[in-house]
């Protein structure tokens, strides 16, 4: 990887957080960036959330219990080709099927010859490492409860709670919070230089970034008292009204649902301090200077509009994103004019012209989306593109190619 690669600014820090609307390929981009950093010599951990089966296979997480980090082999990936245009995609497919072993050997030979530089602040020859893991919110939550609970009996009580069992994943962004927890663990490992974090699909950027605060608010809330216990002194008319609603709700349900919520929240009583302390550390981590936040999107009007919403939310939260990455951009190809000059049978040439025009129309649609994305971006915010491979990334080489092909728009 050369210093000209635009990803450098993103991969040199300690933490890279990929945010973005659902369906834009956040997980793929996270994995490709992490792989790129590892190939540049860094010790990288990438945490994926809900990856596609083929991506899991590519990362070696397919059949195994992937809640713990697993080492991803990097052999032969150092010199994959950049994806420049449509023809390049097909060349790759041909090379892969015809002489894959030769390609790998060639790449390995080039790597030995010193074709691969290191990341800026690292010794050039240091071997990189990539580990991947998959977030399991329920298991992470269980582990935290077990760790922080004052006694095994208390931990048991929480895990047996009806609310915990049925709703713990939906509860106040628990999934998001668990991603944060895991992040903290990973970032504290001395053997890791960079943690790349893929985030759960969210409608709003702050769903994720706000998760620790929301969970803490809930655990520390006066609602606990209101829900089932006696009233404290100094309650207000609002509290009275809340209580009226809550008891109306309990009457309506004919159950002690709210009692359960209260028991659930109360069972965290002794654990609040531990949670609060960790949440504060996560918040620190997110705004640290060596943390890079990127927003991933695709060049479609709905997604670019959402990307703008994410950026606005980040700016409100005082977080300065490092880049916007447009995933699945169309590769370049021949124009209809070029086809028109070709020596082809007239019927075939007309068809090819039509195909080129169709492709150009899609390019035009994409260009318009990128123009609207660019409009209003803060000055200095990088706009980067990752090309569409024409298929789901099925192997590490695909991810390496995507990482290599990251280009400034």
């Amino acid at each position, binding site marked *: 990887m050369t210093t000209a690669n635009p990803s450098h600014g993103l991969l040199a820090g300690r933490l890279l957080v990929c945010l973005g*609307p*659902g*369906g*834009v390929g956040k997980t793929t981009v996270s994995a490709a960036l992490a792989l790129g950093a590892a190939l540049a010599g860094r010790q990288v951990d990438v945490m994926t959330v809900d990856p596609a*089966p*083929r991506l899991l296979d590519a990362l070696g997480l397919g059949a195994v219990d992937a809640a713990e980090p697993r080492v991803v082999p990097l052999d032969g990936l150092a010199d994959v080709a950049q994806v420049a*245009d*449509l*023809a390049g*995609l*097909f060349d790759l497919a041909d090379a892969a099927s015809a002489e894959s072993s030769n390609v790998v050997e060639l790449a390995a030979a080039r790597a030995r010859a010193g074709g691969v530089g290191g990341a800026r602040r690292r010794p050039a020859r240091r071997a990189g490492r990539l580990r991947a893991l998959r977030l399991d919110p329920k298991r992470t939550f269980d582990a935290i409860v077990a760790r922080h609970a004052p006694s095994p009996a208390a931990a048991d009580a929480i895990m047996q709670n009806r*609310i915990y069992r*049925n709703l713990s994943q*939906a*509860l*106040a962004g628990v999934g998001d919070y668990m991603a944060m927890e895991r992040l903290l663990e990973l970032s504290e490992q001395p053997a890791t230089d960079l943690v790349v974090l893929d985030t759960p*699909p969210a*409608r709003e950027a702050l769903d994720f970034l706000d998760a620790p605060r*929301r969970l803490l*608010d*809930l655990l520390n*809330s006066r*609602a606990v008292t209101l829900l089932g216990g006696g009233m404290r002194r100094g309650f207000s*008319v*609002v*509290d009275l*009204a*809340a209580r*009226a*609603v*809550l008891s*109306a709700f309990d009457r*309506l*349900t*004919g*159950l002690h*649902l709210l009692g359960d*919520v209260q028991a659930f*929240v109360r069972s965290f009583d002794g654990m609040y301090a531990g949670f609060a302390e960790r949440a504060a550390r996560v918040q620190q981590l997110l705004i640290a200077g060596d943390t890079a936040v990127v927003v991933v999107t*695709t060049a479609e*009007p*709905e997604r670019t*509009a959402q990307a703008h919403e994410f950026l606005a939310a980040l700016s409100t939260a005082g977080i300065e994103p490092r880049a916007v990455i447009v995933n699945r951009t169309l590769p370049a*190809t*021949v124009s209809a004019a*070029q086809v028109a000059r*070709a020596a*082809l049978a007239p019927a*075939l040439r007309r*068809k*090819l012209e039509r*195909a080129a025009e*169709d*492709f150009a*129309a*899609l390019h035009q*649609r994409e260009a318009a989306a990128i123009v609207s994305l660019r409009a209003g971006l803060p000055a200095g915010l990088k706009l980067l593109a990752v090309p569409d491979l*024409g*298929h*789901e990334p099925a192997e590490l080489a695909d991810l390496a190619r995507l990482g290599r092909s990251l280009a400034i728009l």
Partner: protein
Amino acid sequence: MALARLILVTGKGGTGKSAVAAALALCLARRRPTLLVDLDQRMWAARMLGLESSDNPRDNSDDAAAHDKGAAAIARPGAIANLETISLSAGTELEAFIERIVPIKAIARRMLQSRTFGYVSAALPGLEAFLMLERLRIVAGRAALEDRYVVVDAPATGSAIELLSVPGALKQIAPLGTLNRLAANVESFLADASRFAVLLTLTPQELALREALEASDVLRGRLSVSVAAAALNCVPPPLFSRREIDELDAPGADRRFACLAQWRAGAGRFAARTRREASRAGLRVVELPMLFSPAMGRAELEELSRALDARLFPPNSGKSGKSGKSGKPPTSAGSAGSANVAKSAGAARPAKSARSARSERPE
């Protein structure tokens, strides 16, 4: 085949869910008054149709007339005949619920603004989702009285399934009582194919296909929800024959030409595979053409809606049950789209119809 009163459109992100919902609403509005419902405040489907919603439903909450309907359910007449759009949100449904329970309006309002209340509603996330579904049940009931269609532009598959799972989860939490009865009501609404069905959107891509198949399993199995069809979106019209691609791939020829043709043909081939697999899973596949236009606006949605119309209401649909030979494409298919719809008359036939569909293709 009769369509359900309310059709909820969902699919993997990026499969054109909102566009398909908008096109479906256009298509149905040509037959009967139709209501397009958006489940978040962005109203993307309505915006694509040029029905800008500058008035936020929340702004109308002072309106006494609106009060009883629930704050968000204010129909907004659009510029398209027979088509109205509304936006529902969990927040406004919750407000409406609180305002129902707390008789004194000032107190209800102050409560909704209090942080304490925020914590409580955060502790009961199923409640908001449940109130949304309850609202959809009421909207569908009203639409039945007025003989209207309802199209819902729902969130992406994962969230949509979470939403539809809420009544079942609530029933488990509340095995008795009023909430249980309400949840059972909503559940039977969702399971009634004449009142509620899902339209899954997908594109000719591996992940979209997987997600649609998995969603269909969960919907039909665990949730007992009927899946009206799978809308296979973005199918490129076939252009090159195999022979032509070989011709372009001849030694000495410009490689970029062959690649362009292969790219086009490859997408077509995967579309055929997608159609086969979806049909094999017992899904009725409704194909929509890839529109090679520089923008996706009202005109393009009209084109998609005509394609949908031809496939959902084929001219000979009176003789239902006869299928398998999709020899003649519906004549009203105005688009350049590949005109075959793999009609799945149950799971037994589709393989054949997919084959015959393929043999018609130039490739």
